[in-house]
């Protein structure tokens, strides 16, 4: 109950401090996708997606299953590279720099664009090691105390520190689903990304854990550019400032979240929001 009460309170706060809807579009553009296509083998999964993603705001992708929203998300940090037979066309620019440029270091790109997955996937290591892993491989900490500091501050930002501070050496897989997902968010934050991609981060969680994550996303927006794929339209409406609707591999409509939900232009968007498709 306490958590729910806290949630209500925080939502009010965030409403108070919420940016003006038009602000989302007025913000500088962080990511710029043009004509992005994806083929898996002979099958085309995405058809010419073009969208701008604003800096330090939450952009949500909605649409029925199999509409390509996750596929597009995975283009942004080149996770599709790890899938055999996937080909990506078009261009995606991060701060004006093409991320599909052959000279770009993918590993470095993924440090700048973090990702949180559908199912919480902590490594089978301790809580501490889960968060410390990224900084270690990227050489972000000069000393043990540096590393400690990164781990603690990342866990704090993910709102998990108070719950786990006494058991940092216990396995991360022993946490509850919601805690695991926040651990994964802490793990992503620890690398110091600018953009965080979230692929249906709450779909495996219960409503209370979902509320906590949504709250967290709202806080993170101040420092990070966030792109979230979600099945839940309520979630998109609650957490995002910009929304894009995908259907059958095409981007049907995008715009300020409030407009999309109250005043959609396209019939397909309308149908989806009214629950007639998907």
């Amino acid at each position, binding site marked *: 109950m306490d958590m729910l009460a806290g949630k209500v309170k925080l939502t009010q706060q965030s409403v108070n401090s919420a940016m003006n809807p038009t602000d989302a579009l007025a913000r500088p553009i962080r990511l710029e996708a043009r004509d992005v296509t994806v083929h898996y083998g002979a099958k085309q999964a995405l058809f010419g997606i073009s969208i701008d993603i604003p800096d330090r705001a939450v952009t949500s992708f909605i649409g029925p299953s199999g509409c390509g929203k996750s596929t597009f998300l995975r283009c942004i940090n080149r996770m599709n590279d*790890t899938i055999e037979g996937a080909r990506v066309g078009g261009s995606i620019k991060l701060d004006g720099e093409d991320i599909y440029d052959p000279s770009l270091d993918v590993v470095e790109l*993924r*440090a700048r664009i973090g990702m949180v997955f*559908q199912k919480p*996937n902590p490594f089978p290591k301790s809580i501490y090691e889960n968060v410390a892993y990224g900084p270690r*491989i990227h050489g972000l900490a000069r000393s043990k105390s540096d590393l400690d500091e990164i781990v603690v501050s990342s866990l704090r930002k993910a709102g998990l520190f108070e719950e786990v501070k006494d058991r940092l050496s216990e396995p991360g897989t022993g946490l509850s689903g919601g805690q695991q997902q926040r651990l994964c968010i802490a793990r992503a934050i620890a690398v110091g990304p600018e953009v965080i991609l979230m692929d249906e981060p709450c779909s495996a969680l219960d409503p209370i854990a979902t509320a906590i994550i949504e709250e967290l996303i709202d806080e993170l927006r101040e420092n990070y550019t966030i792109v979230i794929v979600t099945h839940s339209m309520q979630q998109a409406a609650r957490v995002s400032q910009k929304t894009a609707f995908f259907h059958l591999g095409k981007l049907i409509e995008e715009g300020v979240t409030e407009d999309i939900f109250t005043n959609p232009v396209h019939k397909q968007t309308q149908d989806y929001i009214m629950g007639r498709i998907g």
Partner: protein
Amino acid sequence: MNSLAVAALLLVLLGLAYQSGWSRSRALATVGGPKVHSRPQYHGSYVAIWTMMPALVVLLLWAWLGGELTHNHITAQIPADTLQALDQTALNAAINRIRAIASGFGVAGEVAPYEQAAGESLRSFQMLTGTGVLLVAALCGGAALLYARGRITARLRARNAVERVVNIALLLCSAVAILTTLGIVASLLTEALRFFTFINPLDFFFGTVWAPNNAPTAGNYGRYGLLPLLAGTLMITAIAMLVAVPVGLMAAIYLSQYAPRRLRAVAKPMIEILAGIPTIVFGFFALVTVGPFLRDFGRLVGLNINATSALTAGIVMGIMIIPFVSSLSDDILNQVPRTLRDGAYGLGATQSETIRNVLLPAALPGIVGAFLLAVSRAVGETMIVVLAAGNAPVLRGNPFEPVATITVSIVNQLTGDTDFSGPQSLVGFALGLTLFVITLGLNIFALYIVRRFREQYE
């Protein structure tokens, strides 16, 4: 009794019974009639099972008692005075001659008149009993068929009855496997205990000299120390593992993580073909190719390597086990959830970092399990060692010298003339028991570890 006739009888009964149950059931299922509980094929199977049971019981009874009856019939044909003159061996010989005459193959040498008479009598006896048994089996089967057919009604739960029979059949099959294992262990145990009545177990388990006296003069059995054999076994196993684990594991990592799908589709079966090569062929390979190569190579670098040595056998055994390690590890690596890999890639880890820091730690328990299974395989391997290890049961630590293993010594002690009355052949059972305990222990440990690994991701 002619086995063809038996098979024909059973098949005909089976077909008749199934057909009869099936058609009876079809007749029940009329439009607007009662709802029939089971489908026609279940009624067919139901009648078939009912029919086969008594027929099989009759045939089995005959198979069990028939030999005894025939034997008695033959001895009854031999005149009493001749019978008394025959000892056990001569009696068996006479019975075999009579059987041969009855079968029409004929015998060598003069045929005594009583033999001729007995042979003819036996032939008619066999005709009579054979036909009789078939007839009884057919009658019992037929009666059961009629009974079962009469029981078919719309409400008969034939489906459930067939299910029960299938259940029992499956149970019997697994019982065969389990009972065989128990039987083998029991025979190993009893024979090993007999061995220990000759040789003190302490001398066996802790003896350092292996010198069985295979033609024992009274009371001098020679010495049966296990340690030289155990040391040889462990040395060869260790060398084999040193070859198989790195190569197998790397191959598995390459195949599961790096190889393009098309290469994988070709390479994986190719590696598994290695597992299909008979071990005796690996033995040739060790003896003819690897051994001489190692010897020449040793000469080149100034080492004295025997062509047949622990090294030769170990290396070739390692090659033999590679597919075992690689295909188990490959399966285990593929079991690690994709989301874990994605998690590491998403943080900006390179492929090799992901494999080293995430994939291998997650798969480690499973890989250890695979490793232990491979060890138990190597410990029990025989043919390569027989050919390539040199068979020198001496306790020493130099892998370039010939050694002997437990398996080789079993082969040595049990081939040729053996009568299982002295320790020189009974020791085979003691050695076999030792080997069994070692591999059993390894397997249990491996399964325990693999199971713990599995629980982690479910």
